[in-house]
């Protein structure tokens, strides 16, 4: 019997290791994500020897809703892991993808997700070489969870780490913040509001290639996802045992995000991004690097947002729009809305 990709639903059998699972893999995953390595059909993919140091990263994706303006869990699962490998200064090559499906989930939607993964992988130039499917009983999952692991090759001579920020270094941001998080929030049940905000979900490897090609002395790259820009900068400050001083007015935020955050009582600095990066480089190279970033479609609105300073407390500080100073702190708990 052919898999009913139009009206069918995920059944327990699709994860049981039998014929139904083989059929789902063949007609959905192998077909849409197809490549020679995946086609090997063994317990693991045998890959050619790679030159240089390998970078490996893994990420689980549990987004709700599964489809949102600008992306879905499929593109997110690819781009999220591609970006984690990329910001280590590596070229991502291969992905492994593990799916946890909830019994009853429509196969038509699963197909949309896998199609989206295939498009994202193609755009990022990576291959999904191995995978896994498990099914949990209805009510025990949230439709689809996808866990991806990526492998890439680090560029020779490039060592990036959150520990390497030094006082005097420049802090660059590749574009406007808060779009992914607000796009998701705008779709959440109980909070739905009309907004034309689209997630920035994108693979950053092209942008990073260009940045590495520039020859600028890059010390740190990181993608500010969960917890937003503020959390990422605090992580970096702590890792590097240095402070930071930002200029609030220099941090790009599009008006729709600013308005949504204003309305919901959120600070865009704590809202998630999925297609942005923070770069810390030697101050003398900042202008050159900024120019390179702005020439790339994903870095058009790149900005110099501040500098690394000596501070044993590793505080991230900010000169506010009106000229005062304050801390841009770690997020404590979830960002909760204010009430009045």
């Amino acid at each position: 019997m052919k898999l009913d990709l139009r009206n069918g639903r995920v059944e327990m059998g699709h994860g049981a290791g039998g014929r139904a699972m083989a059929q789902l893999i063949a007609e959905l995953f192998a077909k849409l994500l197809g490549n020679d390595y995946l086609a090997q059909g063994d317990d693991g993919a045998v890959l050619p020897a790679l030159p240089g140091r390998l970078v490996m990263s893994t990420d689980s994706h549990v987004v709700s809703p599964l489809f949102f303006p600008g992306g879905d869990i499929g593109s997110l699962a690819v781009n999220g892991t591609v970006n984690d490998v990329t910001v280590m200064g590596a070229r991502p090559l291969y992905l492994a993808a593990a799916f946890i499906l909830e019994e009853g989930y429509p196969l038509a939607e699963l197909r949309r997700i896998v199609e989206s993964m295939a498009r994202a992988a193609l755009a990022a130039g990576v291959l999904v070489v191995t995978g896994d499917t498990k099914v949990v009983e209805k009510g025990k999952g949230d439709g689809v969870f996808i866990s991806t692991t990526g492998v890439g090759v680090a560029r020779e001579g490039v060592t990036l780490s959150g520990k390497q920020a030094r006082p005097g270094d420049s802090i660059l941001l590749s574009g406007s913040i808060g779009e992914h998080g607000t796009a998701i929030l705008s779709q959440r049940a109980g909070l739905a509001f009309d907004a034309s905000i689209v997630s920035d979900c994108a693979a950053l490897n092209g942008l990073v290639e260009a940045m590495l090609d520039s020859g600028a002395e890059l010390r740190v790259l990181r993608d500010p996802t969960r917890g937003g820009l503020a959390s990422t900068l605090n992580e970096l400050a702590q890792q590097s045992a240095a402070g930071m001083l930002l200029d609030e007015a220099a941090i790009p935020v599009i008006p729709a995000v600013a308005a949504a955050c204003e309305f919901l009582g959120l600070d865009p600095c704590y809202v998630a991004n999925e297609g942005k990066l923070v770069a810390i480089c030697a101050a003398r190279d900042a202008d050159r690097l900024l120019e390179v970033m702005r020439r790339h479609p994903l870095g058009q609105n790149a900005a110099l947002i501040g500098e690394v300073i000596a501070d044993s407390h590793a505080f991230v500080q900010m000169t506010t729009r009106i000229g005062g100073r304050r801390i841009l702190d770690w997020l404590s708990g979830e960002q909760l809305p204010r009430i009045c």
Partner: protein
Amino acid sequence: MKFIDEFRDGDLARHLAAGIVREARTDRVYRLMEFCGGHTHAISRYGLTDLLPPAVRMIHGPGCPVCVLPIGRIDQAIRLALEQGVMLCSYGDCLRVPASSGLSLQQAKAHGADVRMVYSISDAVQLAQQNPQHDIVFLAIGFETTTPPTAVAVRQADALGLKNFSVLCNHVLTPAAMRAILAIDGVQLDGIVGPAHVSTVIGSRPYETFAADYGKPVVIAGFEPLDVLQAILMLLRQINGARAEVENEFTRAVTRDGNHKAQALIEAVFEMRDSFEWRGLGSIPKSALKLRAAYARFDAEARYGVDYRAVPDRPGCECAAILRGEKRPRDCRIFATACTPEDPVGSCMVSPEGACAAHYTYGRFREQE
């Protein structure tokens, strides 16, 4: 963003700050209390104190609804959720307030209570409609700003004939708290930055008696940084001119008489409690509201028989003195050590409008200077 950016303009802020510096006499200190948590938040969030001369000292007031709610009130909500099995809905800020036996609403949720964060009380009404088999209780807190929406929701539930919706009413009154502060013996206050959103509802008239009875100038101000700076300048001018009046900086939203429709709603649904305990200020007569008898079936306190039991603050916590404006967060022994936003001991460390949370989150670098 239109109508927002104009009130956060850096050049205008510097201009106003220069005006304040010119106006401030150097031979005296100006102790100004910003009543509202919204002002406290704005002052910290924009680093406004950096723009003020040393002679101007801002004292954080009690106008943070989460902060002034005594522990026993959160205990009531937790008991309802854990023991009576209701679906307890609340604004986000309330969820993390530490209550008795080491529990907050958030922790009660982890223990199996059905606790929901809502953005608006109308979401709670909607939950009641969607879940007829569940009892829904909304933990209603706040000053006059959040009271009219509660009134609307109660009337809506009444019109819909909802039998599974009720309200744990903790709405409190701003003028009562302000009077309590001004009546403190030896209170050192030279002027008050008056409430923004609250005043859109009650108007500026209720403060006139304070200016007259206590000789303290009041300037009602919006929550944007330029509003606060302008209000500080206006207060300094009053103080230097030996005036004590109610002035309105927030004219784009506040009138002398306020919002009649909202006031009528409050009047129709609520009546005065004889007395209500405030954290930090103790029991204040006629300072809070309860549902009128006609709406008694929506009163969760009566419906489930959860009585209020007063609970003392945790040892070492200075929330009470901070809420009275007598101490600053840094005067508290446990500030930033045992009490942090991740693990708050007192309510002032919970809400972003709380004096301790605002100082910790935005200003603690100053401790090192």
